[in-house]
């Protein structure tokens, strides 16, 4: 059990944000002891919930004064343990920092507090014919602050790019509570270092984002959605490569494998995917209506020549939702099959997908594990999902060993250990697969420039000494 806060510190935090927003009771801390990655449970010493930039800065200043480490936290949907409190840290949550501060359709930007949920932003922009492009599958829950910290992706990032492309400015609160504004619409993007780009993806290890400015895009006029049914994931992956070779740029290309299809079809989310299929591939085009039918026809031909036994085309919005259903509900459905689900994440060059998927299948067999693959195929971003039971020590060890082999495999073929979920606690041990000591030192150096005392999110990302709760 971690040490409680010093009474004077607690009192001053309460004075700043109010009694209700300083959480120290064990039962109320329970929800904060893990995030979307269920394998770790680390209860924080306390959780503080500021509502404004000034309150957030004040909270940091107080904690800094006592040398207490800090973990910023959004919705806690992260899948790498990034929002867990290691080493006696206090969580500073953004749940109350949830206001959209300004929506400027003239300049296609919006300013928001970090606790705003991803879809709320798009809902607010839609009346102006605009939307926020990055669409993580968790978008109805996760926050913009979390998206910024993880540089999150989503199915439509194949065409539109990930979070970092859409963040134009940030206000940061540094560890001592100093506020720093970086970037901002209208400023010269070529003047000075791209500090915004550096901070996006820093997993709460540099500073806390207390205000975020995002770029919005005009809503596409139309979409076309296809679902290809294949005998194997390798065939589906070959169709993906054929579509890219054809010179097409779909908005999304997502693969769901047999284990996942079966889980979905056995759940309340049943989407009508054939359960004897080896894989399903969702391909979506968006943009100007006029060109889309031709694109869809060409993609359909690519699927058929790669061996698709059937290609379905959505004729209306309802059918589109149905085709997407199996993809969107995949994690949820898999999660119901076993007590625990480890959502893995890695990227490989797209052309290596068939080989890598086959080898992941072999690894699963060797360790006697069930792995379901559902992933952003167009980007080569894999999510091998491993089913297990946390209480079964032997199984947990096999999951660990298989994960390690999968990571090593992805790196071996020219890929990397995480494409969108981040390093967090979980993947620190794999960092040395991709970087040498000089690169890791350079990352440590950069963190120290922002956070000289090492108070932000200790025990994350960098493969330093062992950390514990």
């Amino acid at each position: 059990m971690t040490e409680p806060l010093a009474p004077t510190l607690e009192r001053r935090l309460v004075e700043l944000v109010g009694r209700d927003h300083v959480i120290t009771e064990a039962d109320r801390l329970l929800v904060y002891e893990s995030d979307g990655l269920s394998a770790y449970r680390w209860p924080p010493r306390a959780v503080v919930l500021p509502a404004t930039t000034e309150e957030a800065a004040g909270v940091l200043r107080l904690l800094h004064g006592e040398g207490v480490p800090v973990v910023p936290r959004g919705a806690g949907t992260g899948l790498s343990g990034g929002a867990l409190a290691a080493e006696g840290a206090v969580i500073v949550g953004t749940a109350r920092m949830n206001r959209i501060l300004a929506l400027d359709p003239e300049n296609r930007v919006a300013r928001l507090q970090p606790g705003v949920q991803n879809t709320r932003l798009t809902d607010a922009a839609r009346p102006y014919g605009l939307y926020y492009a990055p669409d993580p599958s968790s978008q109805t829950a996760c926050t913009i602050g979390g998206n910024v910290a993880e540089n999150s992706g989503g199915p439509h990032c194949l065409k539109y790019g990930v979070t970092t492309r859409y963040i134009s400015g940030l206000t940061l609160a540094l560890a001592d509570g100093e506020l720093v504004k970086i970037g901002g619409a209208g400023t010269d993007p070529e003047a000075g270092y791209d500090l915004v780009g550096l901070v996006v993806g820093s997993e709460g290890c540099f500073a806390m984002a207390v205000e975020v400015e995002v770029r919005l895009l005009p809503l596409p006029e139309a979409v076309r959605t296809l679902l290809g049914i294949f005998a194997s994931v390798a065939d589906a992956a070959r169709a993906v490569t054929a579509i890219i070779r054809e010179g097409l740029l779909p908005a999304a290309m997502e693969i769901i494998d047999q284990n996942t299809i079966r889980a979905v079809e056995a759940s309340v989310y049943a989407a009508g995917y054939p359960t004897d299929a080896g894989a399903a591939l969702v391909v979506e085009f968006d943009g100007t209506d006029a060109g889309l039918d031709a694109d869809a026809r060409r993609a359909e031909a690519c699927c058929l020549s790669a061996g698709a036994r059937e290609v379905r085309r959505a004729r209306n919005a309802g059918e589109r939702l149905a085709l997407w259903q199996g993809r969107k509900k995949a994690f949820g459905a898999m999660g119901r099959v076993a007590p625990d689900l480890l959502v893995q994440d890695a990227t490989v060059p797209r052309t290596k997908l068939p080989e890598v998927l086959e080898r992941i299948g072999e690894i699963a067999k060797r360790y006697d594990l069930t792995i379901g693959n559902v992933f952003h195929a167009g980007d080569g971003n894999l999510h091998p999902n491993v089913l297990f039971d946390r209480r079964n020590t032997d199984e947990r060890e096999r999951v660990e060993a298989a994960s390690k082999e999968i990571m090593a495999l992805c790196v071996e073929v020219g890929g990397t250990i995480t494409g969108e979920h981040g390093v967090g606690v979980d993947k620190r041990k794999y960092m040395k697969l991709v970087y040498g000591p000089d690169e890791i030192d350079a990352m440590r150096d950069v963190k120290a420039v922002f956070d000289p005392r090492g108070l932000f999110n200790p025990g994350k990302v960098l493969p330093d000494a062992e950390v514990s709760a």
Partner: protein
Amino acid sequence: MSPADVLAGLLPRDEVREGGTPIGGATPEATVSPGSVEEVVEVLRAASAEGFGVVPSGSGADLGASAPTGPFVVLSTTGLKGVEMYEPADLTLSAQAGSTLGEIGDVAGPHGQWLPFDPPFAPSRTLGGLAATGVRGPLAASYGAPRDHILGLTLVTGDGRLLRLGGRVMKNVAGFDLVRLVVGSRGTLGVIVSVNVRLFPRPAHEVGLVLEAATSHELVTAARAVATAPVLPASAVLVSGLRAEVGADASSADASRTPKPPSLLVLRIHGAPETVAADSTRLQAHVGRSFRVVEGAEAFALLTAVRDHAMTGPIVIRVSALPNRIGDVLAGAEALGDTVQIMADPIAGRVRAAVSGASTEGLEQVAHAAARLGGGYALERAPVGVSIRVPGSSPDGPVATLARGLADRFDPQRVLWPGKRVT
């Protein structure tokens, strides 16, 4: 020993020459073009040990207007050439930093792919220079900036460490994003020796849509309409002072010839033929004007001229503001003199002006007006002695402190770009 002597002892004879092209009026002690990454490491180690400065240079097109201080050498990457890996089906390519965008286009073109970057004089720029400056052209409106498509790079830091940052895959969040820090750092953190980029399928069809008016002022409303249209063109540019015979002489700042050429709003639309037709119709309907359509070689010549326009006056100033203030910025830039060439991007909210004889005060006025609009500005080119003071920017501010901290970590002896203030 002089830097030239030190380097002559380290590198093959034909890679070192004394002197070189002055930067902001300061002449380098020597210009070196290392033929390998190891040699780049040697040069930076020697500089850190001996205390001379190093200014990394690609094609040399964009070294800026300020002079390095103290003795320095120019390190040119033009000796580091060649595509190291190209996998068309992955849309990824890696090349050494001295490879030009034109050379990369020649490799990717036959596969129907391209790099959608169009800064001024794009084909002659090096890939390393593109990464170092992060410079955007009009296509950034629809494709994003170089920073969005540089997947990884190899950097030699000021003290000669070799860092392999990022990777070769489309999505990568392993560790902090040092690639983004390096892209646009203009040689102050290290020498970029190779770059991995994402390519795009080359669009099947392309047209230019052109609207003409006597002054740029008359095109502002149309340009604003484009920037808020429900369909994004590939790029939109407003130019003035561009001569009709663009192909022959796009770079002349000489406006003594009359009459004054018209201002143009040029939209680039590309994609499948039916998409191009539909987008063209929609954009014109939204703007409420009918544009002249140019295609083929004519479109190519015009788009190239527009891309490179307003780069060759003795003074080139770049001003940014929120897109809805573009009219104000344009008016300020036009007022710099009679002989102003303008290239404005209404979607990005950026204006570039090439002026043959503006006063420091005139430039400061434009700059301050931009600052009041919440924007920024930079002198891209200026004669020795012309500079603009930046009002209100404090070297002790938190952003400058962070920037200095970063430069100190990558270049502890601060040999890179000696005297340059990092921000």
